[in-house]
């Protein structure tokens, strides 16, 4: 299927492969590979990694936060803040402690966002990258606090913020305090903005709920990855509420851009260069090359 077609395919078809990590043998028995949900070809893992988890047809597979940091930051420039901070079970919510422990073990990260300072093509910035494999990037108090601190530190340092979002919304196990993180992070974004500093968001698949309704949509410039699901309510909830069939491509990045809520769709192949250029344009840097 040509690239353009998959952009307009309904969500459910696209989503099938995104979460799969099963390795199925390709034509070459020795080469591990996985199926592309868009073109249906078996993509050798080596080729996938070489192309930042994208298929040659243009499909963007999900990427974990460390992979993203390695991919977007200059080598050895990333220094992490608040690493290893773990959430507590503030509400005494049934099963939350176990869920957190299991997630930490399975995912290898301590929480659903990684924050720090880095250089992108030599441009100094603060960066936060949300982790899709940690409880679907849900926002609890630790995520809210780490992102808030990233903006506060960026203000102290006079630096721009680059934020990668991926989230299923609020962390319901932290109840109302998770909801309050929308206000907290938004306050920090506002202060950073009022100080004349630049904030760039890159919305990745999927970004919904409280993250869409706060810092994801508050960037000076909002970029999105091709095919990313971007919305407030999830498509299944909308279908159930309205009992209507969703239009083709509904809530996909391309659809959201068409409706005026995303500045540009930038594939991973040009993402680093685009971000670096935007950073340069906002920090008084001269054109390079």
């Amino acid at each position: 299927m040509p690239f353009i077609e998959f952009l307009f395919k309904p969500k459910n078809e696209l989503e099938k492969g995104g979460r799969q990590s099963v390795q199925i043998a390709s034509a070459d028995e020795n080469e591990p590979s996985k199926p592309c949900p868009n073109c249906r070809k078996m993509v050798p893992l080596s080729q996938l990694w070489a192309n930042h988890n994208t298929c040659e047809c243009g499909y963007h597979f999900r990427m974990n936060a460390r992979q993203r940091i390695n991919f977007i930051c200059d080598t050895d420039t990333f220094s992490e803040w608040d690493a290893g901070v773990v959430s507590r079970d503030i509400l005494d919510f049934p099963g939350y402690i176990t869920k957190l422990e299991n997630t930490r073990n399975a995912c290898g990260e301590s929480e659903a966002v990684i924050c720090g300072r880095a250089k992108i093509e030599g441009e100094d910035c603060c960066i936060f990258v949300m982790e899709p494999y940690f409880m679907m990037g849900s926002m609890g108090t630790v995520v809210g606090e780490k992102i808030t601190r990233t903006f506060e530190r960026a203000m102290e340092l006079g630096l721009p913020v680059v934020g990668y979002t991926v989230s299923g919304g609020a962390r319901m196990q932290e109840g109302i305090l998770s909801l309050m993180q929308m206000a907290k992070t938004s306050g920090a974004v506002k202060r950073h903005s009022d100080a004349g500093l630049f904030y760039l968001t890159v919305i990745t698949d999927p970004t919904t709920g409280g993250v869409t309704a706060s810092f994801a949509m508050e960037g000076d410039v909002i970029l999105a990855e091709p095919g990313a699901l971007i919305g407030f309510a999830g498509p299944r909830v909308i279908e159930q509420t309205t009992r209507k069939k969703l239009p083709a491509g509904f809530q996909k990045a391309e659809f959201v851009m068409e409706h005026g809520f995303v500045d540009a769709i930038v594939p991973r192949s040009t993402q680093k260069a685009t971000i670096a250029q935007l950073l340069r344009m906002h920090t008084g840097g001269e054109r390079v090359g």
Partner: protein
Amino acid sequence: MAKNTVSKAYDRVKLARQNGRPTGVDYIENIITDFIELHGDRNYADDEAIVGGIGYLDGKPVTVVAIEKGRNSKERVAHNFGAPHPEGYRKALRLMKQAEKFRRPVICLVDTSGAYCGIGAEERGQGQAIAQCIVEMMALKTPSVSILIGEGGSGGALALAVADRVWMLENAVYSAISPEGCASILWKDSSKAEEAAESLKLTASDALALGVIEEIIPEQELGKESFYEKLRVKLSREFRELTSMDVDQLVQHRFERFRNLGVPDMGGKK
């Protein structure tokens, strides 16, 4: 009620949703005089799920923005059961910015199961509309009080509750997700809503204990003249105090109020 579990929290959820409970316009009619409703977001439409306008509170002009569920079935349909679209939030924001310009205090009355989930709402940027309300309320250079009078459903409620003071009616609820939604996601069983309601800590006393609200408004006289009279006096007193503050300080306090909510142990220094 199902089985043996008696859920106090879920009883409140039911009360908060109950038909016949005073809605936003009841408060406006009983507390505010000479109210003039102002319509539209100046971009797309007038969303009747939000009623806004200007009136007098004890003889002083105030802006009131209320999420309105409707008082009978006809009204409920007209007001979309209190589920705002993006244009509703944009109307609310327009009126709050207008209040800021003329240094009028803002009263928000919040009562919604959530922002509307629909195709048009997404097409017109529900997330962006809510985000903008949150950011702008945070920085609004005029005093604000938000009162959760019934349901405080998720981001759609928070969008109008980033205020200097947030109060809750005794039986109002405030939550990141409905107990039914929580139960069906976590336990694949929406009939466990009672347990979910308990676990979510969504009652007014929970919100007070967590520092999310400043005060609980008792409901013994709910809907009676004396109820509105007390609330009117309380609002007047609060705004007297808030308007006496330097406006930058006011905004700073509001920012800190939300900044300090849910600060986890980050393991030592910043």
